[in-house]
């Protein structure tokens, strides 16, 4: 025993240190990435709390007692209808997201569960949208919206974003749904669950992590989009936050305080939604496997 102990320690020591080295390297890479990713966000947020002069004098320093100013936020709240813009953005994002998740999951279930003749072709057709950017069809979409009288309505945006989000949602969710054991669904059938119940009560809870992933991937581009609000719904009462923030960017003068403040505010709701979904994601992972 006594003789074997030093040998085992001398073996385990280099292994331990190489493990630590690997951990340090991994953390260094991740921390670097985090800094790069967070840098612009942090700059926006700290500068939104500074006076105009301070923004330009030292853009990277945090606000102190001299440079601290809420002028940006005051302007945003006074000028423009930001509460309305927020409401519009939230309405569009949440309704589109719900529709993408719901219809996407339904289509994915059909593709994964039922063997019918054009199954593969239908799947490919539905996935095509991942490869073809929806913006290529902007002119046609605009014509369609004009013809149906939907220009300057939130409905127009919701329809476009639902179409935009569906392909990826169907693709990811059908992969996940194929992974759910047939026995489980068959057990449900024997217990007398209808196909709708099997979908809603067995399959959906099990693909919750995938749903959360899809939700995050779908939500961010919708919230941040400037293109479609600008083209399809530029009217004052249906403006989204990103479009609303453009009010402060002029051709000659830009109100940086207000722009930064409005952008900072725009981060908050999407951050909250993200936190909700990521919690679901973690819950799904830890809730235990099928077997």
């Amino acid at each position, binding site marked *: 025993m006594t003789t074997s102990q030093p040998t085992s320690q001398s073996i385990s020591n280099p292994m331990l240190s190489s493990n630590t080295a690997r951990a340090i390297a991994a953390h260094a890479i991740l921390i670097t990435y985090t800094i790069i990713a967070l840098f612009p966000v942090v700059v926006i947020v700290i500068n939104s709390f500074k006076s105009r002069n301070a923004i330009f004098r030292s853009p990277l320093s945090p606000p102190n007692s001299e440079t601290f100013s809420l002028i940006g936020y005051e302007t945003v709240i006074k000028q423009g209808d930001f509460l309305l813009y927020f409401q519009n953005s939230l309405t569009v994002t949440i309704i589109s997201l719900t529709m993408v998740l719901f219809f996407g999951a339904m289509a994915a279930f059909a593709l994964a569960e039922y063997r019918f003749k054009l199954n593969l072709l239908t799947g490919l057709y539905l996935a095509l949208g991942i490869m073809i950017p929806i913006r290529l069809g902007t002119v046609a979409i605009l014509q369609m919206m004009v013809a149906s009288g939907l220009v300057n309505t939130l409905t127009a945006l919701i329809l476009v974003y639902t179409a935009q989000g569906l392909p990826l949602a169907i693709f990811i969710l059908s992969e996940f749904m194929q992974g759910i054991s047939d026995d*489980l669904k068959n057990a449900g059938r*024997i217990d007398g*669950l209808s196909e709708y119940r099997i979908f809603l009560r067995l399959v959906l809870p099990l693909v919750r992590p995938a749903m959360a992933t899809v939700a995050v991937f779908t939500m961010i581009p919708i919230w941040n989009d400037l293109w479609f609000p600008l083209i399809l719904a530029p009217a004052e009462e249906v403006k989204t936050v990103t479009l609303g923030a453009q009010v402060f960017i002029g051709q000659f003068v830009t109100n940086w305080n207000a722009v930064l403040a409005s952008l900072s505010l725009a981060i908050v709701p999407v951050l909250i939604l993200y936190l909700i979904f990521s919690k679901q994601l973690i819950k799904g992972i830890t809730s235990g496997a099928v077997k």
Partner: protein
Amino acid sequence: MGSLSLKNIHKSFGDVEVLKGIDLEVEDGEFVIFVGPSGCGKSTLLRIIAGLENESSGIIEIDGEVMNAQPPTKRGISMVFQTYALYPHLTVRDNMSLGLKQTKRPAEEIKSQVALASSMLALDEYLDRRPAELSGGQRQRVAIGRAIVRKPELFLFDEPLSNLDAALRVNTRLEIARLHRQLSATMIYVTHDQVEAMTLADRIVVLHDGMVEQIGTPMELYNSPANKFVAGFIGSPQMNFIPAQVLSDDKATTIGIRPEHIILTQEDGDVSGTVSHIERLGGDTNVYLDCGEAGLISTRLFGEHDYEVDSKLSAKFDPDRVYRFDQNGDTITA
């Protein structure tokens, strides 16, 4: 209540015919086991009985009623799956009661049924846990409990023990046998393990290549197999098959003799050879004899025996236990 009748069941997947005309009558309260090598169609047949798979042709009657067009839930069956197939997001109690809730039974009845099943299977203390918090054996008991709660006419088991380790398998096997006695329900059970089949079944259905090879009680299959396939499939270690001309028997093509019906001797026997390997199991000793033209002969001796590897021995066959098969593999009776 609980009889099953299959008439000329066929099933094809595309061009592949997996079931080629299955006929079977199961009486009320019988324990029938489908056994066969993998790919023989036994699980498909069980799924067809359950209604999870559509038959290509043929008639399924449960309790005298034609069930072909009925969905699984209307057939009066319960099924236990190999992968347990418990609902992972529901507690043990909810797993067991979901089927009854679905048929809108009164809450009192659901409660008493779940209580009955859980006490039968010793699951009382786990009722509020989720499947992920249970061991494999416990999960399989929950799956069995879920089947009991529905009070089916017919229990279907799809290889229920194959995901369990050896010790647990024996325990669960005993448990299933006890349940069958207690509930006196009709049970259909699929397995590829002939030991499970022999120990549990009232009758065994041996399937091979989508066809029934033989139906009979375990001892009928052991003592009078209809053909070479059944003779080889039932019994462990496997029956020895020896080309008939080696033993100068011109009426048969193949001679079969079970390892336990051979005596090893130093004197003249039916075949002789050298010992190639010995397995000492304590209660039994398996001796493998390399007999040249006759092939490798396995013998199973009761108790402990000592033979040297490479020593010369002869094997004497019990003449009453020798089976003869013709060129089609069918047993020659006479």
